[in-house]
């Protein structure tokens, strides 16, 4: 978590630096009066790196992935809830349970 967050911050910083380099490069082009033919190598590299870092942070920081398939081991339904709205009380508890010691004390 901490590592992923740090990588994310690093990615954003690199992205910022790439933006800054681009502005500088355009300024330089204006001074040298050359035509724009493509971004410089270091900006492209920085963008790629920042992209990878940000993706990694976005995947690892928010939490771990949960299965969504209904038939996966975690999600498969093993039993239905007991129908508590239709619960009835005259069953074997009347004779078998003798926990009379329980009491609400106030």
């Amino acid at each position: 978590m901490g590592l992923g967050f740090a990588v994310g911050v690093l990615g954003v910083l690199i992205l910022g630096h790439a933006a800054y380099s681009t502005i500088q490069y355009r300024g330089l082009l204006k001074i040298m009066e050359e035509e724009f033919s493509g971004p410089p190598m270091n900006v492209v590299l920085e963008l790629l790196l920042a992209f990878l870092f940000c993706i990694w942070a976005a995947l690892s920081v928010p939490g771990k992935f949960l299965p969504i398939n209904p038939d996966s081991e975690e999600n498969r339904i093993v039993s239905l809830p007991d129908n508590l709205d239709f619960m009835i009380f005259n069953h074997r508890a009347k004779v078998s349970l003798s926990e009379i010691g329980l009491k609400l004390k106030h």
Partner: protein
Amino acid sequence: MVSNTEEIQLNRLENQVDNGGGGAWDYLCLVRKLKVRRSEKVLKHGLSILNDPKKRSSLGPDEWTLYEQVAIAAMDCQCLDVAKDCIKVLQKRFPESKRVGRLEALLLEAKGFWEEAEKVYSSLLEDNPLDQVIHKRRVAMAKAQGNISGAIEWLNKYLEIFMADHDAWRELAETYVSLQMYKQAAFCYEELILSQPTVPLYHLAYADVLYTLGGLENLQTAKKYYASTIDLTGGKNTRALLGICLCSSAIAQLSKGRNKEDKENPELQSLAATALEKEYKQRAPTKLGLLISTLKSLKV
């Protein structure tokens, strides 16, 4: 619906609480969320929280929910004194509440005073004629008095108004099965599958009913629903696997003399048998011989 992870978590928490490891409140919350009926444990652990003033006050407003939960659990365990005390506390806090009124009627039911309970319910219904819980209680009361046909009548009336209530459909289906009225039960399960198509246990129950009804067509449909259960549970449902084997052998017996234009897929049954053998080997090796001889007698 109780999924596999939730069941494991519930059992783990129950074990922990039983052995004095704490987490009683979490356990009670989970029981409430999953709507399982473990009244004895709820009564024991809920009371231990309620009897401890420090723990009780730390719950805040959830305290009253716990009183209600413990009251119902106490009625289920026939500890009517505890239930009465809990309801008294709630009554003091919420004097005009319908929910507490319902609990009082529930207590009357638990004591077996049917007529008094019925009176309370009808007066509550006058205030709010669309209270689903009270309508359901009427059904349960008829059932508790052994008046199953009355319960079915009430349920049918209820379902005419609240058609989307799948709990009621399930109750009706189970009641019909208990009376061996399988055609009606099958209708209810169809309704359930329509409303919740991803719940494998409805497919399984429907298949069971169809298999019990018998006849070539029903058996073939039953086999399809067993197969869909397997699909939805990832092949972990033993009952569905056995159902496939039973259906296949019954179909083979019924269609013995006829020319088989619609030949059944023989792979399905052998696959089910293999899966069963694998599961038995893993979880109950001592019963493996029994399984193999049974499968052999079914000629799967």
